[in-house]
Structures are given as structure tokens and as C-alpha cells.
């Protein structure tokens, strides 16, 4: 039986119908056509599907959509500031942190959660925060550099 739920995605309320077995990933990508969020396993193993539930990164392939009824969700589509890239997005583009770009949406939101709670993470803290997000292209180092560069810009913005 399909049931109505409301998801607050990137600040917008979406009313949709879903069966209890659907994951948040499926509802985001298929019901709402927010295909920015990716999937590499749908078993909680790769991190490509990460989104923010409130402030926390979650693997949307492991979360049932019903559990998110009424909760605020942030996906990569919600990161831009109008037409401008978020400093994390700009830094990823400038530092070569997105090669194929398939891991990127999940890593961006995970990094955003990190910087929101810790504006000056050490390299080790960056490594730890991203340890659930696999990237097969970059070897991670340019991703670390991009996160650190964005952290610097975000700190400047705050001042």
C-alpha cells in the first residue's frame, strides 16, 4: 500500500506517495527525480548515496523513506547558493577533486557536515570523516586538499 509522506528536501516540501519498502535513495532519485545523489551498491558499502538528514550524513540506500517523513534533507542539489557554487563545490572543481564525479555528491555533503561542525579540521579528521566514501578515481589526496581549501574560504566568510 502506498502511503503519503512529506520530505523537506533542500528546503522545499515534497509530498509523495511511497510503499514502506522504498529507500530514501529511491524516493529522491525516482519519485522526486533528484538524480544528483548517486548509488554504487545500494548496500551501504560505498558512500555514493550519502545525503544529510538534518545535520548528519546518512547513506540514503539504507534509510527507509518513511522514516524521513517531515525531516529536513540536504542533497547535492541543495548546496549551491543560487547560481553560485558552494565554496566546497568550487574547491572540488578547482582542485581536481572530481574526476568522474560519481563519488562527488556523496563526498560533498559529507564534507559539508564535517565543516559545519568543525570549521578547521586536521588532515586526519578529514580522512576520518570521508572514510565511508569510496573514490576509485582520485586517490583521495586532491579531495582532502579541496576540503581544506574550502574550509579556509568558509572561515574567511564567517569573519
Amino acid at each position, binding site marked *: 500500500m502506498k502511503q503519503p509522506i512529506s520530505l523537506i528536501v533542500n528546503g522545499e516540501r515534497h509530498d509523495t506517495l511511497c510503499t514502506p519498502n522504498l529507500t530514501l535513495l529511491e524516493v529522491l532519485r525516482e519519485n522526486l527525480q533528484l538524480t544528483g545523489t548517486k548509488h554504487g551498491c545500494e548496500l551501504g558499502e560505498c558512500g555514493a548515496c550519502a545525503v544529510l538528514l538534518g545535520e548528519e550524513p546518512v547513506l540514503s540506500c539504507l534509510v527507509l523513506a518513511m522514516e524521513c517523513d517531515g525531516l529536513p534533507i540536504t542533497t547535492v*542539489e541543495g548546496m549551491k547558493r543560487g547560481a553560485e557554487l558552494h565554496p566546497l563545490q568550487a574547491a*572540488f*572543481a578547482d582542485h581536481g577533486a572530481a574526476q*568522474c*564525479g560519481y563519488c562527488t555528491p556523496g563526498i560533498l555533503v559529507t564534507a559539508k557536515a564535517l565543516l559545519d561542525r568543525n570549521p578547521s579540521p586536521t588532515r586526519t579528521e578529514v580522512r576520518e570523516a570521508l572514510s565511508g566514501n569510496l573514490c*576509485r*578515481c582520485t586517490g583521495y589526496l586532491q579531495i582532502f586538499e579541496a576540503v581544506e581549501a574550502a574550509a579556509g574560504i568558509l572561515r574567511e566568510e564567517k569573519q
Partner: protein
Amino acid sequence: MSQRPLHIIGKARRRVDGRAKVSGETRFADDLILPRMLFCRLLRSPLPHARIVSIDVSRAQALPGVHLVLTGADLPTTFGILPVSQDEHALCLDKVRFVGDPVAAVIAQTELLAEEALALINVKYEPLTTIASPEEALAQSEPRIHDYGDSGNIHKSVAMSFGSVEQGFAEADHIFDDTFSYAGNTHLPLETHAAVAALDPDGKLTIWSSTQTPHYVHRSIAKVLALPPSRVRVIATPQGGGFGGKTDPFNHEIVICKAALVTGRPVKICLSREEVFYCHRGRHPVLMRLRCGVKQDGTLTALHLQTLLDGGAYGSYGVASTFYTGALQTVTYHLPSYRFEGCRVFTNKPPCGPKRGHGTVQPRFGQEVQLDKIAVALGLDPAELRLRIVEKPGALTANFLKIRTIGLAECIRSVVRRSGWADKHRKLPYGRGVGIACSSYLSGAGMPIYYNDMAHSGVQLKLDRSGLVTAFCGAAEVGQGSDDVLCASVAEVLGVEIADVKVVTGDTDLSPVDLGSYSSRVTLMMGNAAIQAAERARELVAGPVAAKLGVPVEQLVFSHGRVFPAAAPETGMSFREAVIIAEAVHGTLGTTGSYKPPKPAALFKGGGVGPSPTYSYTAAVIEVEVDPDTGWLHIEKIWIAHDIGRALNPTLTRGQVEGSVYMGLGEALMEEQAFRRLPPKLSGALVHRTPSILEYKSLTSLEMPDIDTELIEDPDPSGPFGGKEVGQGPLLPIMPALANAIFDAVGVRIDEVPITPEKILKGLANLQAGKPARVGPKGFPTVPYPEPLQVPTPWQGGDGRAVNDAVRSKDKRAKNV
């Protein structure tokens, strides 16, 4: 046209598709949603080797919401990437050859429904004996997995001899005889394969697919569906990584095309992660024996290499892979004589194929570890030994490969200097060590996959009064940055901004053919084609502009979006105004550029594999710490130097180097495509041990060590702006450098990949027991290699032909394998 410094090439820059990638707007294949779209799932074989007795699809077909069920009989024509290995069916026709071989397809209203319907299909199998390993394949010629190939379960067996290795061994002071083994591993692109097929409003077929080779997919679909290629459109979507795993035409692509033709509706398929492990086409497991003759001063006199490849269940690129295991031994160090024997067998496992470094990775591991052993035995520093024997620029090797620029010595010096090698090698305390290794890779294959005389890459430009330049090319963007290379090359030559060039790529209807993203060919081949097209466009614009300004054409400069005489910049005009003048004179403006590699010097059979317009070179030093109690490894740091000719966009180039190191390190330490037999009561089938990301271990952000990269830039005349490849070469030295570092740390030789803590402990135990401190294969089986082709070397006056190949010596042209 007047020369000016480069403005775009060589500068670190955001890639042209960077914004889309970080905003989530890049449309990957599974992101495509079309009205009335149906979904496809494949039923895959649970048995490794069996005859299909019958398939009953009636119950699946009757399920409401199921639109179509297809079986092998619906698609009986064979296909395959190589003309010599057309051995695949879109759905198995009469037998299955590995667990995961697809036998039927359901097309339904939802993916879930399609999955449910699979369970209603009843397939009766008659199991056949499973061939699980190369040893079994050699020992058992029956049952044959395929009814073609050299004999029994041997797919391909080749042998070639360049000069006299017997004489080389006779001149040697020492002969080293080593065996190595290299486990299979897989690409694991983060994006699983996906595709959508649909009929366009004119009724013609279109497929969007995550493929590295739209051109070859185009050919395969046209062949199997018996359609004129002009009525099939293949669009390569940007891919979430490929690494060679998306270079074959695949079953699922053909199946959904058929389904779209039958149902008249768009059909999507997205493979699960488990299915990607079955598609595979990854690194071949290879057993190798290297016999190497050396003089006291380190000079090599002869190399005899034997390889045995576990090919899995289908041909794929396997014939090329087999030749590649023997192709590039000669391009790093001077080898006066060389013999290569290679053999690929069929086994009932997912098919192996090309993975980053295709076929050259495994023997490179053997060669570089053996060199380390040679250095130890001769009392030489392994870096110094390599410097003594580095091949010369411009050389024609024993197997007729033409070297152009070679920056290998600079690479070695760079990593030795930066790593502090002199203070570390054999000087670090017990448990810590450094190792060095080198490598080389192709900048594009010299021969196409199917023999033809046409260009390997084509670029078309359209210019108009808006000032926009549109560049069309069939190249596929895997993530490596090919769109950026195209855009930057055109912008550089025309002196316009990146934003004034639009690229249209990987679309067989719109863009001229490029053979695909494999063999590190795109930057060099597409880049050269793009330069040619842009230079022609520049000429087209320059003529009318020079006439208008009353200056000689040679004095015009195209720079920073302007066209002006070098002597009087202020009298010039914007690029857009220049195009308007040219369009008024010439009418519609367009140019083309093409690239075709130079003819290979190798004319013997099999000589089509190995030639390249030019080769990249790499050297790496790894520092490691080994815990002798646990065998646990900690990588302190990796120093790498890569001879790239010229880095077109250093940000992307560094990313390719680091990504290669990452992938090489994963192979070296943990990645392994392993199989096991189920117990007899559970069918006894041979199944994949770890078909999931969780169990197939790869490096995370926590394990990735620091890398110190230096790019060695000595522009190569054959490359675009002097550039050579970077996407694959830097992977190759990692595995042997690690093995060599472990020896330096604890005195144990691991002659196998992956190098696990268990193996290190075993080596240490051997050492304590007074046995050889080595873990590796015990020997090399007897393989029925054919009589070798005898090819005299260039220094013996050879002309690139074999003296004992009656057919070839009459044939003037060197044909592909």
C-alpha cells in the same frame, strides 16, 4: 601565423565539465528518465558450466506488467570486441560458461516487477565439468568451454623470438630464473554499468550507455540486430569511472536495444554491483617465468619471458592481452635479445580483459622485482643498475617498437633525489625499507581493433558569427578529462577562452569517429586531431582578416579572444569580428582534423600489439614499514616521477598519477578477484568469493598514503603540444616497488600480488626456518607453446618480419592480430 606562448595548455585549471560534476548536474546513464520507460533485468546462470536443456518463460510472460521476455534464441548472432573472438551471445544460446552468464531478460513496467518475473523463469541445465584454473584448462581439453581457439581449452598460444636468446645467455655472466604470479582483480568503477535504449521519433534506435567505446558498441549492436549502422545511434554518457571495465560491448546493451525495438518504448537497465563483478573484464591472473641473462656490470644480454593467463569464460580483449604480456619488456631497458611465449586459457569464470595497464602490469611486476634481485646479487644499487641500462631515445627495440622521447633516467633521478634514497636504501633499521621500480606505457595503440585504413580519431569544428566554436569528437568522457583536452586544445590554437568552445562528444550520430577511451590513446590522438582542425580553422579565418587589415597572414596573432597583427595589436579585432569577416568571405565555416598513428615497424604476426606513437615513462620509490610480528604493512610515502612530455592541465595530470598510484596500491595490497567451490551438496559450483564492495577490499581515505609527484616535461614531437599519456603508466611501478621495499625492510621476497600480511609472515617463517625467504609460485607448468616466430633484430639487419612465417613474408602489410 605568428608564434606566441601557450595561454591555456600547461596551466592548472578547473576542467571544462567541473561545474556540472560538483553540482550533481552531470547526467550519468542511470540518471536518464524517459517517458513510458520500461525496465530490464537479466537472469544469470547459477552454474559455472552447463548445457541449457530448456527455458520456460511462460509464467514470467504471464505476470501482469511484464512486457517482454527474451532468451538466446531471440538474439542468435555472436559478437565480441575483437574480430577474432566473436564468441559472445547477448543471452546464452546453448550453454552457460560462468556463474553470472546471462540466459534470459525480462522487460517490465518497474525494476522490481522485472526482478520478480526472473524468479518465474524455469531453466533446465545439464551440468558440465567445471574448468577452474589454468592448470585444469591445460590438463583437460574436454569439455571445451568454446569450440574455437588454438586447441582444447587453450584460447591463444603465441611465441616469438627476437635475435638469439641462446647467444645472449651464452654471453651472460649470470642467468636469473624467477617465477611470479599475479592475482586477478577488477576495476570497480563506482558507477555500475547502465544504459537506456529508445526509438527516436523517426523510429531509429538510440542507446545511451556508460561505455568507454561507443564506436565498438555501435558496430556490435548493428551486427547482432542486423541494422544498418546509419540507423543506430550510440551516445556514451559521462561515466562514473571505467578503468577498462566498460570497453567491451556488453550483453545488456544489446538486450535493451532489442527490447526497445520490439516494445517501441524506452528500456533502461542498471546493473547491480554484484552483476558488475560478473561483467568483469578485469586484470588477468598471470603466472610468469622470466629468465634473464646479465653481465657483471648489469648489462642485460637476454630475456626469455613465459606467461600463462587465466582468461575466464570469453575472449574479450584476451588475444591482445596475451600479446601485451610480452610487448613492453623492451621499451624501458635495452635488451639485445628477447623471447616471449604467452598462452591464454579459458576457464569457467567471469571473462578477463583490459584493466588499466592492460596485460603489461603483471610482467612488469616480474621484471622489476627480478631486476631488484639482480642488483642484490651483483652488489649494485637498484637505481644505479636501472640508470645503466635505460633504453636510448629514438631506439628501435629488439621487437621493433620505436621509442621517441624517453625521460626514464630523469624519472629515476627525480625519485632517488626526493626520497632521500641514498640515505635510506639498505640503511634503514630492520622493519623499514625503500624499494624502487620503473615502467612504461603506450600513448595509444598503434593499430585499431579491427583492421582498417581510416583515422583513429576525428575532430570537426563549427564556427559562426556568434563567436562560439563547437568541437565534435567521438571520444568518451570516462572521468579522465577528455572533454577538457578537446576544449583546451581548440581554445589554445584559436586563442579563445575555454568558455567560448563547446564540446559535443561520444555521440555516433553527431561526432566523427574516435575509437574510444582505451590504451591511453585519447589525449594523444584526439588532441592531435583537434590541433589539426583548429589550425585549419585559424587559417580559414586568418586569410580574410589579413586581407581586410592589409597585413601578411604570417603576422596575425590569435590570442586572448582577439586577432591582430603582431606589430600593431591595437589595429586588430575580437575573434568574433574576425569570424564574421571570414564567414562573409567563405560562407559557412567548418573544418576537420584527423589522426592516424605512424605505421608500426613491426611486421611479424602479433606485431600489431605494442607499437604506439610514443611511450610514457615512470619511476617510483616506496617507503614501507613492516611489523614483523603481524606482517602488517604501513606505507610511509610514495615518490613518483612521470615522463609526460607536457602536462596539458597539471591539475588533471596530477590526479591521473595519484589515481593510478591509488589503484596500483590497492592491487598490491588487497584487491583480488577470488573464487571458491561451493560444497557438493550446494551444486559444487565455482562462485565469486567477494562480489560486493564490502568484501572486495579497496583503499579508503584512511589507508591512502601521501604521494609526492613530479612531472618530467620534455615535450614529445608526436604528442599534442608535446604531451604523452598519464592515465595508466603510473600504476605499473607501484606493485614491484612495494615488493622491493618489503625486501629492503625485512629481507623477504614476495613474488606474488597481492602482498598480504599472511604472505609476509610466511616469508619471515621461512627465513627463520633457514628456508629461502620467498613466497611465490613453486614453478611454471609445461605449456604447449608453438614454435616461435624468428624475427631478426634491427641490429641483426632485420626488417621487422619473421623469417619462418611463410604467409606473412608474402604479405606486404602488417595486419592486426
